[in-house]
């Protein structure tokens, strides 16, 4: 399967030039760009590991591309995303989020059904990769 989270997961994988263009857009809006990484792609895993702080005062998207590539050196087999944070009153949350690196093999998710009364079901979703402990997932 292909993890479809983020703004551009239905497009071909982004090149460094693409990442630069999108990061520059965020910077030009006044948003702080940051890089995050995980080996737990559950759709409700909110807190991916932070690759450093959000780059609050960075005017140049080249620095973002640099950090993405530094992160890839250590975590090339995991999911890496770029997010943009907007501190404007009334928003104060994320404005952009897109995946810039993914494992070569994405085993996907298992749907677990717990049968209840009256044909009711409780559903949960588990990543197949999570059978391995943290650090040993995705090879």
């Amino acid at each position, binding site marked *: *399967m292909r*993890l*479809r*989270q983020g*703004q*551009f*997961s*239905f*497009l*071909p994988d982004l090149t460094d030039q*693409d990442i630069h*263009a*999108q990061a520059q*857009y965020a910077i030009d809006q006044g948003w702080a760009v940051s890089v995050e990484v995980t080996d737990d*792609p*559950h*759709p*409700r895993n*909110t807190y991916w590991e932070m690759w450093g702080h959000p780059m609050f005062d960075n005017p140049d998207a080249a620095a973002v591309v640099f950090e993405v590539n530094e992160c890839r050196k250590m975590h090339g087999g995991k999911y890496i995303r770029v*997010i*943009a944070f907007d501190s404007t*009153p*009334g*928003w*104060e*949350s*994320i*404005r*952009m*989020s*897109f995946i810039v690196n993914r494992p070569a093999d994405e085993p*996907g*998710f*298992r*749907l677990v*059904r717990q049968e209840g009364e*009256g*044909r*009711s*079901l*409780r*559903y949960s*979703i588990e990543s197949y990769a999570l059978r391995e402990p943290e650090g040993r997932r995705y090879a």
Partner: protein
Amino acid sequence: MNDMSDAKTVTDAKKRYSAGVMKYAQMGYWEPDYTPKDTDIIALFRITPQEGVDPVEAAAAVAGESSTATWTVVWTDRLTACGKYRAKAYRVDPVPNSTGEFFAYIAYDLDLFEGGSIANLTASIIGNVFGFKPLKALRLEDMRLPVAYVKTFQGPATGIVVERERLNVYGRPLLGATVKPKLGLSGRNYGRVVYEALKGGLDFTKDDENINSQPFMHWRDRFLYCMEAVSRASAATGEVKGTYLNVTAGTMEEMYARAEFAKSLGSVIVMIDLVIGYTAIQSMAKWARDNDMILHLHRAGHSTYTRQRSHGVSFRVIAKWMRLAGVDHLHAGTVVGKLEGDPATTKGYYDIFREERNPMALENGIFFDQDWASLNKMMPVASGGIHAGQMHQLLTYLGEDVVLQFGGGTIGHPQGIQAGATANRVALEAMVFARNAGRDIWNEGPDILRDAARTCTPLQQALEVWKDVSFDYVSTDAPDYAPTASVAM
């Protein structure tokens, strides 16, 4: 206009309160020198007086009938601070280019209203007065709601920002589709459409307004099959997915029961119809806030009173009431689709949904500055006759915080529902990507779509099938003022 009328409030108390009939303007409902207080509620009516009726007297009558007046003088007024409780018409302007129509500005003291109740507000403002004989027609065009009043309402249960955080979707419009045919599918077949559309790339599917619990599909059956579909699609894509389960029913008790069941199955969203009424909407908004549920409102029935320019209630007023009442999603027009909506008026609606503060913008039909006092923002929903080939227009007109609903444009795809959903999602992502990368999507949109279709056959097919579809009719409700007009407050 404001100095044309010779009507003056009768100040001599003996004359004013002697039994009999008197002009509304003389009774104190016309005060051309009145300056509205910051805490006043202001209503702007479009009035069309009958032949021979003075527009100022007509405006005073509207003020009177929507506040304290009756048709004759009553001495019991004198037991109250009646000057305070009388609504005051304070300004009457001829409508540009519309003979016989006038804009009447009427101010109401805050104490005329119970806090936190749309029912109470509307019982005054659109209560008796719309059937008043001296008027040929009457339309409530806009309202200024003071911060003190706004703060008595909960507002949207979730709001745009938290909805995005819950769904984990940022930086692009959300995508949805209404299941079709809207009536007749069994629960099992209905869930198939939901699964295919969500797996193909949509964020949401939607019940239609009249899908409740009919012989062909009872509500529990629909909820169970839909949530199986939502959960399977979520596992297949790694995304949070939702389907608007319509809980509209004949009683509040039944609506709560259905909403609780939707919650127990793990749904992130439920849906209601405008026809359930303002109080029921507010109750469901409270339930949604208490249960971490997004609340979708389908504006079923609104065109019966919003569409005609001379009579009824403008949709911009309905939008304001719904933001107070506390829904998260509300349909607001597409500009380019099959349903009514000119671009300038629709922009006015979208601003009311999404902004912290609306400055007066006559060119968009917004007559007052409106401060929303940190009430959550509502997510506009665009649906009705839109398709992937219009993506550049939709993104330009409607922006990023919107749900684009492609019903026919998903389910009618020649290669099936999943392909239809994928075509829409690819078109959307490609357009957002291009816009961010600095391209002129308004002019280069068709090229951007063609390029994206090179690696996406479903998009190629969608562009081919719907290439000539557009709905180009004259709008029945456009702003009265050209972009340059300005009216001093």
